[in-house]
Structure formats: C-alpha cells, structure tokens
C-alpha cells in the first residue's frame, strides 16, 4: 500500500480513538468549549488529509460532519443528545470507510447520502428526523455516471441490440449509483500526483500552522518501528545477562582484602547497564489508559442498548506497562467490562428495588505492586448467581451435585472460567456466547499473569488481574530433579520448604501431601511428572551429602528482591533424607512440587520453546544459564493441569485432625507398651483416650470388677493380663467411649510410633489380634474390642436385646477364609472414629482391603466416582444421614445397587432389623460382635460369588 496511505491510516485511527473518548465526555459536558474545539479540529484534520489523498467518499462524510461541529464550536447550534448520537454515527461511518481502506486498499462502494442528509439537517438546526433523504433517482450525479459509462457500453454494442442497450441505460439511471464517483474519480486520479506534490510543499506549512493550535506534545514524539525497538530490547537483555555473569564472577573472586583491576570499571558498567535497561524498558511502556480508551464509548452504547444506567470510573490510567502486554490484555479487559455491564449491573428499577442507586458503577483500578501490575474490575451489580452456576456446572457435566455441596462459594465461582460456560439466559449481541472467560484466563496466563474472582451475590463482583511487568527477563529459581536442572519463575514461587523428620511427606491413598501450618498441601513429584528415572543409589548418596541450600540467592541491583522464604526447620545432618518442596500458587490453589535439589535464583531470558515442543504444557520456555547450558522453564499452570483435578479438590483448607482415611497397608500410630513380659505390645493410638499413672492402692472392688475413682466416675480397671502385678503406681491406658471409660493396667509405656499394621501371625490369644513387626521387633497387637468387652459387657450396648453370641475359637478359621477371598474390598461407613479405628485392623487381619469413610455423603461421592467395593458395611446412627437412608440411596440409583450391604448397629430391635432388610441391607449385625461380623461377611461374599457365577 502506498506509504502515504499507511501513514494516514495510522494517524486517523489514533484520532478516531481520541474522538470516541471526547464525544462521550461531550455528552456529559455538552457545552465545554475546549472539548468542542478539539473535536472540531480532529474531524477537520481528517477531512483535510482525505482530500489530499483522493478519498472523496471519506472526505464528503467528514466534510459534512465538520460543518455541524463547526456550528457547535461557534455556539450557533446547541449540542443535544440527538445530535451527539448523530455525530457518533458519522464517526462510525468514517471508521467503517477507513477500515475498508485498510483492508482492501481503496474506498468501499456505498452510499452515504442518508447520513449526509441527516448531518445537513442538523446543520440547519432541524431535527434529524426531518432530514430529506434523497431518492436515488434525484441524484444530480447520475447524468455524469451515464456519460462515464457510455464509452464502455459502446464497446459492448457489437453484441447487443439497441433496445437492450436502452434497457441497460435505463437500469443504470434508476439504480442507486455510487454518488457519481466513477466519473469524478477518473478525473481525480490524473491530477492527483500533481496535487500530491503540491501537497507535500503545502503540508509542512499547514502542519506548522496547526502546531500551535494542537498540543505541542505531538511535535516532541517520534515514530519508531516496533521491530527496531524489539531488537533493541533483546540486545539489552543479553547485555544485562552478561553483566550479571561478570558481576557474579567478580563477587566470587573478590575477597575481603584483594580487589582486582576489574573492580572499578565493572561497577561503572553495572550502573550504566542498569540505566540502559531502565531506559529501554521505558520505550516499551505505555500507560494502561490506552487500553481503556475505548471503554467509555462501549459502556455508553451498552447502557443505551440495555436501558441501564452505568457509570465508568477509571483510576490509575497512567500506570504503565509493557506494550506487548498491553496488546494482549486489551481484549480480555474489554470483554470483562462488557460482562459487568451486561450481566452484572441490573436495570434501574431492579436496583432501586434492591435499595441501590439507580446508576450502577463499574470501577477500573490499576496499580503497581511488587513487580506486577494489578488491574481490578469491580462492579456493584448483582454478583454471580451461585445457583445458576451450579445448575450450569451440572448440565455441562463438570461436577456432580455431591461435589458441589462440598465446594465453597469461591470454588463454585471458578466454574465460569471453564470453556463453553455461560449462565446468561439468552445470548445477547454483547455477551453470553460462552466463549469468554476461559479465553480471557488463557490469554492472561499465557503472559504469566493470573486472574482471580471475588463475588458476592447481590452486592457485586470483582476481578483482579495480576500481570508481570516485564516479559523478557525473569527471575527464576533453579532446581534439580532426576539429575537435570529446571527453572521455575520466581513470581510463581510462594515458598520453599524443606521436609524434616518431624514434618515429612505423608501419603493419603498414595497421593503425597505435606502439612504446611495446619493445612494439607497436595504435592507433585517433579521426577514423576516429567517421567524421569528414579534416583540411583549413587545419586541418592550424592544428594544426601551435598544437599545444602545455596546461600547465594542473588538478586540484581535495582530489581525487586526475591520473595522467597526458606524455612529451615531442622539440622541438615539427620539420618532421613530431606526433600525440597516448592510451593506454588495456580489460580486460587496452592500445591507443592517435590524437587531433589534447590540451587540459586538467577535472572534469565525467556526464550520460546521450539515449535516441535510447544505442545508440552509443562514448559513455559527455555533459557541459557550463565554457564552456557540450556534448561527448560517450568510452567506451574501446566504442572497443575497435568496432575488433574485431584490437586484442585484437595487444596482447600482441610482440617488435618479429622477425616484422615486409612486403608490397608497405611501407617497407623501405635502406642507401644509392655505388660507382664518384655515382649512389646501395641494398640492403635487413636483408640487410647488418655494415659494415666494410677496408684493401685486406690483401686476398689465393685462386685467382681476392680474399679477406681476417676474423674468423678467409677472406672473399671483390668490388668492387661494376669502377669501384670497391680501394685504401686502403674501406667493405665484409658479408653473412653460415649461416656464410658475403661482402664487397662500395663507395666510400662514404651513409645509411640508409626508403622504399617501388617499382621504376620494370628494369635490364639483372644485378647490379641496377632503379631506384627514394629520397629524391628515382634509386637503383639491388642484386640481392644475384645478386651473392652470382656471387661465390661455393656461397653458397646446402647439398647437391650442385641443378639449376643458366645465366641467360638474360630479365629484362625476366619483368617483362612479371609485369605481365600483374595483381598475383597470393603467399604466401612461409620461416623465414630473409635469404631472405624477398631474395626479396620480387625478386617485387615481377616484379609480384607478396607476403606473407611466418615459419612454416607462421602460414600455416595465415591460411588459417583466409580469406585467399586465388594461389600459395604454401614453404621445406622449417623448424624448426616442415617444408615437406612444411605442404603435406600445406594439401592435406588447407583453403581452399587448390586453390592451387598451389611448394617452394623447397636440398635437391633426386630423392627430395626425389618426396616434394615426393607431398605436393602442384606444383613444386620451387632456392632461389637466381631465374629458374627466376620462370618457374615464371608457368607455374604460367597453368596455374591454364587450369584455372579
């Protein structure tokens, strides 16, 4: 395209943007003389330039527009809203023509007579409706077009009859011609070059004449091609890196007493490069106001279209950010502001009814904060409707009602960021197409930013966008995993944590987690997610000996300090190997990345990955370190995505004292003690209520039972076994349940430890579950249930009339049966931790794979998830949902309809049993009756097997 045209287009586009803003202001302040003058001048300039360049259509429209504006400026014509809308139309028409010009290189065909007529009407002070829109046939230009066309027609004469020609002519005459431009343009194109040269001579003078009228700012600016600046930027970045390397070398070679000759010049170089870096950054910085320029107009149009009153407040327009970033966020910002206007702000009557001012406000706020720029878009509209989002989420299959119940408001709000999500009831031309927020989030995350949402139903919503100030040079933490190094952008790192003996990585059903200040942090192993091989023995040893956090956390002068917090909780020289966890935040969620080693933080230049590797979401780029090696830069967003939903679900503040689910093979806390002999015995710590030292002389007899006065109650006491001598002061394990206590006298408390409860030998001693190897020693595991029961028959009773069978010595029998079932899966649902903890080892011994849950709701969720069990054992009395309802639900509509269910209860009246059977329990067993439970289970399972066979 012609260079002149290109320049014209750039200038005109800029002017048009300014015009938009000014016109909106004009609407608010119709009689502002300065504003009027400015608008007039802008349109005048456009008109003038198009005339020079031979753009007659544009010129005509601008000319008529200028006329009307001239009258405004001179005060001859009053600025009414009707006229302002007309001017807007005029500007839009100009924009349209300019756009076409940009795309095709020439003015589009079309008719502007309507708008010109309206402008003329306005010029004469008439109402716009009174405009005389001329009928096409009245056009004075038509004869000219006829003349112009005749030569062409003459060419065709050879193939047409005269009548056909006449018909053609007539058709031409009556059709709406392009304003006779055909003829006129032909005239114009020839003299155009001459005019242009004249123009060149004229132009400088005219611009000079204009200069004092227009702001003098334009004279001080210079147009520079973007590529030139980009190049400059890259070179300066490399320079900065080289400077950093030099500084680091200098730091290492400098000792307290010696100073190399390089010292002074290097310092100077350092300062100069810092200044250069700042200067070049500035060239790329633009005020965010530029991105906001179009918004007032958009909001105005929106308000009119939707019949609402909306006020747009902008704060911090001068906040500067990188040009590249600005371009990328322009559209997302516009989209969000539109959303606020469309979905957020209510119509005036609704607002009034809600006690809000009729005019809704959308506030834009931008400010710098620690290496980022924060942009807030807040509205005082009706906020996000939780119910609608829930509905939509279910409809789109993104979550089940169960899952939604457990989510916090915040989590539910996050659904709007999923693709294809829109809770708008109808799609307006403005928004609601459901392609919005996910694209917004993707765009923002692409540049390393983040977006958060906070909404209160009825009060309003607020979006906060955080964007890093610069894209090119980034501070990064260098870590190692699997013998390879990687970089993690510093801004993504919230904390660095080292595991210790006391606080290490724990596992919940195979997923590693870490306790970070009372919250459970889900973890991801970098090794495994990158598919790197497991550490070899040599590697492990090397890591152990050299795992020191480098003191040299370097920061570059003038930059923000790294926000790393290193928690060194323990001495490094412990036996257990420490692991490092990098805590990052993605969206609203925290998670940790397990790495082998942590090195330095370094300033790196981010280079895009090769196209071949671009699909790997885990990498955000690669870079060259100071030592010349190439390393990949990790993208926490990508890592979060790769680990799937498991992470996002778990990371809301989980109270770690509750719901720790144990399954077979998991570690249990055990209390080790000795009783009667030196062989250690163990009991699950969770069952033990308290440890006391009781003077045996205070023990009294009540009937056959030894009791002691304990906390205003009589507590039955039993020695662990007959070998325990009840004399003097003895440690007592106190078990408590529903108001009952029981004390077990032992010889000595040895320790508390965590171990796997893998029972090796079964025991013929009814008081013991079996033996296991704990801390390297063969330890007897106590069957607490039995002990408690034999001590106090009423221990588990709540009502009377339970079937109570005498136990048979079929312990080993059961184990054999259990084992032959090849690890059947049992789901145990009971709200009492005591029972869960007691029954689990029991079932484990019998050879079952046990999963325990606290509430039927969780169980139902598991069901939805597709988890499968062979038998479900459920308590009846539970707070959230009782066993009967649970069974009903399971039987009604789930994957588990066929799964046998066994009810476990301390209620066991005949009516209860009947009811249980009715809702779907196959069997009904008393809670404390271990043997019946086990035999019932094996019976049920074999019945099932026969059914399936």
């Amino acid at each position, binding site marked *: 395209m012609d260079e002149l045209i290109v320049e014209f287009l750039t200038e005109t586009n800029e002017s048009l943007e300014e015009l938009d803003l000014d016109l909106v202001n004009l609407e608010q302040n119709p009689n502002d003389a300065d504003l009027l003058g400015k608008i007039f001048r802008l349109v005048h300039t456009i008109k003038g330039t198009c005339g020079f360049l031979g753009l007659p259509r544009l010129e005509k429209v601008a000319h008529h527009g200028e006329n009307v504006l001239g009258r405004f400026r001179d005060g001859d014509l009053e600025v009414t809203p009707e006229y302002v809308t007309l001017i807007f139309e005029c500007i839009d028409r100009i924009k349209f023509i300019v756009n076409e010009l940009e795309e095709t290189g020439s003015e589009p065909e079309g008719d502007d007579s309507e708008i010109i007529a309206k402008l003329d009407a306005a010029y004469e002070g008439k109402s716009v409706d009174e405009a005389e829109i001329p009928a096409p046939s009245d056009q004075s230009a038509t004869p000219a077009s006829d003349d112009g066309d005749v030569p062409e027609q003459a060419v065709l004469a050879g193939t047409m009859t005269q009548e056909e020609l006449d018909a053609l002519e007539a058709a031409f005459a009556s059709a709406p011609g392009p304003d006779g431009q055909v003829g006129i343009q032909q005239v114009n194109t020839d003299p155009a070059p001459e005019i242009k040269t004249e123009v060149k001579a004229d132009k400088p003078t005219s611009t000079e004449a204009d200069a004092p009228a227009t702001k003098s700012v334009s004279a001080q600016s210079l147009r520079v091609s973007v590529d030139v600046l980009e190049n400059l930027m890259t070179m300066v970045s490399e320079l900065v890196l080289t400077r950093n390397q030099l500084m680091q070398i200098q730091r290492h070679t400098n000792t307290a007493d010696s100073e190399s000759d390089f010292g002074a010049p290097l310092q100077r170089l350092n300062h100069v490069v810092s200044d250069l870096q700042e200067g070049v950054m500035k060239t790329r910085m633009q005020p965010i106001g530029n991105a906001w320029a179009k918004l007032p107009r958009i909001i105005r149009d929106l308000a009119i279209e939707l019949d609402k009153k909306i006020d747009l407040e902008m704060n911090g327009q001068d906040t500067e950010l990188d040009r590249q970033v600005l371009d990328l966020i322009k559209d997302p910002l516009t989209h969000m502001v539109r959303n606020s206007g469309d979905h957020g702000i209510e119509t005036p009557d609704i607002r009034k009814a809600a006690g809000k001012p009729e005019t809704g406000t959308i506030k834009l706020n931008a400010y710098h904060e620690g290496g980022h720029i924060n942009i807030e878009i807040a509205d005082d509209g009706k906020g996000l409707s939780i119910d609608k989002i829930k509905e939509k989420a279910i409809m789109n299959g993104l979550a089940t009602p169960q899952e939604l119940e457990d989510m916090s408001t915040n989590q539910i709000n996050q659904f709007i960021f999923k693709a294809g999500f829109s809770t708008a009831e109808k799609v307006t031309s403005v928004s609601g197409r459901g392609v919005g927020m996910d694209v917004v989030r993707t765009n923002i995350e692409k540049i390393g930013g983040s977006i958060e949402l906070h909404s209160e139903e009825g009060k309003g919503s607020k979006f906060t966008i955080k964007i890093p100030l610069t894209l090119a040079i980034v501070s990064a933490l260098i870590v190692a995993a699997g013998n390879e190094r990687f970089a993690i952008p510093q801004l993504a790192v919230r904390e660095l944590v080292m595991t210790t003996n006391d606080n290490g990585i724990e596992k919940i059903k195979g997923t590693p987690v870490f306790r970070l200040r009372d919250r459970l942090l889900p973890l991801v192993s970098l090794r495994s997610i990158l598919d790197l091989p497991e550490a070899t023995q040599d590697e492990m040893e090397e890591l152990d000996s050299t795992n020191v956090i480098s003191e040299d956390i370097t920061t570059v002068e003038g930059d923000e300090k790294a926000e790393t917090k290193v928690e060194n909780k323990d001495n490094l020289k412990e036996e257990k190997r420490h692991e490092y966890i990098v805590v990052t935040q993605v969206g609203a969620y925290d998670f940790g990345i397990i790495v082998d080693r942590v090195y330095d933080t370094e300033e790196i230049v981010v280079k895009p990955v*090769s196209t071949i590797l671009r699909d790997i979401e885990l990498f955000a780029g690669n870079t060259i370190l100071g030592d010349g090696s190439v390393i990949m830069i990790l993208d926490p967003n990508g890592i979060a995505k790769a680990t799937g939903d498991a992470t996002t679900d778990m990371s809301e503040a989980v109270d770690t004292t509750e719901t720790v689910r144990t399954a077979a093979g998991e570690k249990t806390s055990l209390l080790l003690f000795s009783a009667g002999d030196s062989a250690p015995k163990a009991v699950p710590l969770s069952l033990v209520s308290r440890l006391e030292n009781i003077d045996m002389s205070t023990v009294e007899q009540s009937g056959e039972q030894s009791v002691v006065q304990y906390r205003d109650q009589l507590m039955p006491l039993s020695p662990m076994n007959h070998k325990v001598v009840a004399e003097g002061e003895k440690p007592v394990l106190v078990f408590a349940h529903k108001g009952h206590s029981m004390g077990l006298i032992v010889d000595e408390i040895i320790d508390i430890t965590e171990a796997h409860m893998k029972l090796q030998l079964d025991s013929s001693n009814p008081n013991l579950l079996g033996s296991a190897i704990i801390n390297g020693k063969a330890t007897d595991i106590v069957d607490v249930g039995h002990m408690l029961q034999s001590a106090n028959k009423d221990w588990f009773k709540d009502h009377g009339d339970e079937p109570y069978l005498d136990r048979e010595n079929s312990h080993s029998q059961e184990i054999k049966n259990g084992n032959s079932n090849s690890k059947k899966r049992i789901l145990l649902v009971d709200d009492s931790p005591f029972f869960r903890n007691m029954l689990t080892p029991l079932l484990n011994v019998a050879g079952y794979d046990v999963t325990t849950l606290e509430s039927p709701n969780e169980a139902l969720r598991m069901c939805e998830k597709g988890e499968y069990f062979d038998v479900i054992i459920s308590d009846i009395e539970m707070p959230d949902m009782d066993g009967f309802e649970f069974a009903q639900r399971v039987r009604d509509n789930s994957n588990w309809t066929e799964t046998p269910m066994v009810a476990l209860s301390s209620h066991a009246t005949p009516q209860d049993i009947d009811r249980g059977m009715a809702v779907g329990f196959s069997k009904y067993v008393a809670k404390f009756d271990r043997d019946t439970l086990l035999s019932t289970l094996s019976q049920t399972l074999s019945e099932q097997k026969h059914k399936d066979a």
Partner: protein
Amino acid sequence: MSNQAYSQDRLEHGNQVIDQSKDFLTVVISGQLFGIPILQVQDVLRKQNVTRVPLAPPEVAGSLNLRGRIVTAINVRSKLGIPKAKKGESSDMSVVVELDTELYSLIIDRVGDVLTLKDENFEPTPVTLDPVWREFASGIYRLDDQLLVILDVPKFLHSVHA
C-alpha cells in the same frame, strides 16, 4: 575432464541448455550417504552437549546452545528408523539448519564432502525404498560408486512433533 569435454560438446551443438548442477553437503548415517542442499546448511558441529528435554518425542535429542541461540537437536537415525549406532560408528556430528526462524541440529554419524552434482544424475526416489525413507527423500543421485539420498529437510522437520 570428461565434464569439460561434455560441456564442450553441448556448446558445439549450439545447445542453449546450460549445465545444471546443485551443491550438496554429504553426510553419512549408518553407512548410507545422504545429501542436504548446501544452501540450507548453516553450521556443521562436532559432538555437542545436548540437554535432554523430558517428555519430548523420542527423535528429539534435546536442546543445545549455539552462540546464544537455542537449537533443537534431532536424532536423524531415530526418526528414520535406523537402530542405535554401535560404539565408534557415530561421532555424533550435526548439521545445523534453519526452518521458519528456528534452528535445528540434525545429528548424524559423520560429515562428508561438499559435492556438486549434475541434475542429469538425479533420479526420483524408487518406490521400493523403505516408506519412512521415501517420505523424507526428495530423490537420489547416482554417484560413481554409491547412491546418495537427498534429504527433504523441511518435510523431515515438520514431521517431528510432540
């Protein structure tokens, strides 16, 4: 010698046709000679320190640093389906090419000479050739004592994708 005579011959016959030939860099992979148009070759490198890229496709050997630019190293053997080189068979040299503003280094066994080859010795790829090779070969030259397979570098690189 014979070349000269040949072109003389043509000139004498008043032939307007100018002797067409192209220059190729020859490389050796597992004993087979391949040719890359010389104009596509940016650099020839000795064995380099290549950083492995986890999760990359198997033919991507990794990345390396070439005078400040990051180059993606491609293991040509692997992509062509040739089994791994035995000890000493390959010196892991590489040829650096540029495609769509990105740099790639093609790891091959050994680099040979630059040859100027006459168009008339060019043949289209025989259909009996291994399908994988055929995909990436743009043709074959008949040399005196062996055949030279011409590698279609853009096609080759485009087919490597995560």
